C-alpha cells in the first residue's frame, strides 16, 4: 500500500489527460489489483469442461456446419419471400371458389324440372310418365285435308297422359278432363282406358288394362319386335307390344333431360286437348315396309278406328305424326325421321318442335 501515498493521487482525474488517467489507473490497479487477486478464483466444473470439449469435437465431425449455418438465413429469407405469394394465391383461390358458389346456376332449374318430370307421381305408373309430350303451343289443327271424323282434331292431342303425371298441378282443364273421364269408366270408355288414369279408368274385372302400366314398368327396356307407339290401347295389346310401347314412349335419357319447363306446360295443354274427347291413336311399324308406320286414331267410345293410314305418305294427325317421328328415330331411320319432321313442319307451320326432336332440324 505504499503507492497510495504517491503525490500523483491527489491530482484530480477530471483534468482528463490520458497520461494522467493512465497514471491514475496504474495507481488504482496497483492497489485494487492486489486486493482483487486475493479474491477467490472459481473455475468451471469438470462436467462443464467435458461438455465444452465434447461439443468442440462433435463440431469437427460436421465440417459443413458453418457453411450450413451461413446459408440458413438465406434459405429462411427465401421462404419468407414466397410467403406473400402463397398468401395471394390462397386468397385468389378462395375468392374464385366463393364466386363460383355464389353465381346463380343457369342450367340446374332445367335439370330440376326434368327431375320432376322423371319422378313418378303418386298413383301414376312410370310407363305413363314417360310418354313423350308434343309441342306446347300447338294450336288445334284444323286438318282441312281430312274429312271431319267423329273425333275432332283437337281431341287427338289431348292424349298425353304423361303430361298430367309430370305436372300434377297443371291447368284446371286437365283436372276437369280427368274428373270428367272418371264417371265414364263404367261406360263405353272402359273399353279404351286412358293411360293417364290406368287404375281408376279400368273397368272392374278387366285385368289387362290394369296390368298394362305396371307391366310396362316391369319391362321398360324389353327388346322385342319393332313396337307400335300406343298412346291408348282400345284392344288390349300383346304384352311385348305393351312393353315396347312403354319403352318407345319414353324418350331417350339425353332427350328426356332436355325437356324444359315451358315445354312441359305446353304439353300439359296439349294433353288436355288430347284426352278431352277420349280419343286415342296407335302408331306401329308397317311390317311389309320398313320405315313406314301404320297409324290409326281411335274413335273414342267406338271400338273401330275413326281414321288410319300408313305414313308415308298418309299424313297422320299431329300427335301421331310426332310419335311416328320418334318411332323412326328409335328404330334407326334417322333420315326418314328428319323427312317426317320436315313434312310435319310443312303441314303444320305453327308447330313448335319438341326439345327432343330439335336436333333433327
Amino acid at each position, binding site marked *: 500500500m505504499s503507492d497510495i501515498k504517491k503525490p500523483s493521487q491527489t491530482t484530480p482525474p477530471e483534468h482528463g489527460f490520458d497520461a494522467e488517467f493512465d497514471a491514475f489507473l496504474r495507481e488504482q490497479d496497483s492497489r485494487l489489483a492486489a486486493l482483487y487477486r486475493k479474491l477467490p478464483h472459481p473455475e468451471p466444473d469438470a462436467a462443464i469442461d467435458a461438455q465444452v470439449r465434447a461439443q468442440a469435437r462433435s*463440431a469437427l465431425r460436421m465440417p459443413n456446419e458453418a457453411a450450413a449455418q451461413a446459408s440458413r438465413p438465406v434459405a429462411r429469407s427465401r421462404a419468407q419471400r414466397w410467403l406473400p405469394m402463397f398468401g395471394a394465391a390462397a386468397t385468389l383461390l378462395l375468392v374464385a371458389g366463393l364466386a363460383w358458389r355464389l353465381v346463380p346456376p343457369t342450367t340446374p332449374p332445367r335439370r330440376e324440372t326434368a327431375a320432376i318430370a322423371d319422378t313418378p307421381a303418386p298413383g301414376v305408373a312410370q310407363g305413363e310418365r314417360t310418354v313423350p309430350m308434343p309441342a306446347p303451343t300447338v294450336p288445334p289443327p284444323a286438318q282441312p285435308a281430312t274429312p271431319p271424323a267423329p273425333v275432332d282434331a283437337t281431341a287427338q292431342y289431348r292424349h298425353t297422359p304423361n303430361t298430367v303425371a309430370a305436372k300434377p298441378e297443371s291447368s284446371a282443364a286437365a283436372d276437369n278432363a280427368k274428373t270428367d273421364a272418371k264417371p265414364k269408366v263404367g261406360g263405353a270408355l272402359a273399353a279404351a282406358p286412358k293411360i293417364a288414369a290406368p287404375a281408376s279408368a279400368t273397368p272392374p274385372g278387366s285385368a289387362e288394362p290394369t296390368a298394362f302400366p305396371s307391366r310396362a314398368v316391369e319391362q321398360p327396356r324389353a327388346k322385342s319386335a319393332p313396337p307400335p307407339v300406343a298412346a291408348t290401347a282400345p284392344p288390349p295389346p300383346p304384352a311385348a307390344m305393351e312393353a315396347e310401347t312403354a319403352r318407345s314412349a319414353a324418350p331417350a335419357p339425353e332427350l328426356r333431360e332436355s325437356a324444359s319447363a315451358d315445354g312441359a306446360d305446353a304439353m300439359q295443354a296439349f294433353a288436355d286437348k288430347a284426352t278431352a274427347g277420349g280419343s286415342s291413336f296407335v302408331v306401329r311399324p308397317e311390317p311389309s315396309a320398313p320405315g313406314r308406320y301404320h297409324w290409326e286414331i281411335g274413335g273414342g267410345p267406338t271400338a273401330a278406328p275413326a281414321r288410319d293410314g300408313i305414313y308415308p305418305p298418309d299424313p297422320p294427325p299431329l300427335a301421331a305424326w310426332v310419335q311416328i317421328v320418334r318411332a323412326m328415330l328409335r328404330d334407326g331411320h334417322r333420315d326418314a325421321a328428319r323427312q317426317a319432321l320436315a313434312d310435319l313442319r310443312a303441314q303444320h307451320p305453327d308447330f313448335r318442335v319438341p326439345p327432343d326432336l330439335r336436333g333433327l332440324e
Partner: protein
Amino acid sequence: MGTGKTDEELMLAYAQGDALAFDALYARTRGMLYRFILRSVPERAVADELFQDTWSRAIHARARYRVEAKFSTWLLQIAHNLVVDHQRRLRPQADADESEHVLGLLDVPERERPEEVLSDFEQRRRLQLALEALPDEQRNAFLLRMESNLTLEEIAQVTGAGHETVKSRLRYAFAKIRERLAE
C-alpha cells in the same frame, strides 16, 4: 498439444480440425472467462450457462475467426454480449446522480482511505460487495481490466464503447469501489 503456440494459432489450428489445439486453448482461457462471467452475473447457474454458451458460439464461429485481435478479446467480446443481454433483463442501469455522487469521493484524504484501516479479509469481502453493486457497464469494464488485464482499447473493442466512455466507466468503477471499501 501446441503449448508453444499463441492463443490465436491454437484457434486457427482448431478451425482446421485440430481438437487438441482446442483443448490447449480451452485450458488457457477457461478460468479467466469463467471468472469474468461469474463476477458479472452473481448466480452460478447463470454463469455456467453463459460460459457454455460463450464456448458454443466460439466453436460454431471458428470458421469465421480471423486474427485481427487477441483471441481472448474475441472470446470476451462474445461473453460480454451474452452477459449484457442477461444484465439488461435483470436490472436497470445506475442513474447519473448516483454516478456524480461517487465521483466526488475520488479525492478522499489518504489517511481516511479504507485500505489503510481494514483488514484484508474485510477488504476482500467489501470488494466483492462493491463489484456486485456496480452498474453493469462499469463492472464489466472493471472486470475486463482486472481479470483479463485488457487495455482501454481492448475494453472498448470488447464492449463496443468508445475510448472515453471506457475511461469514464473505469473511473466511476474505481470511485465506487473505494467508497464501498471506506464504509
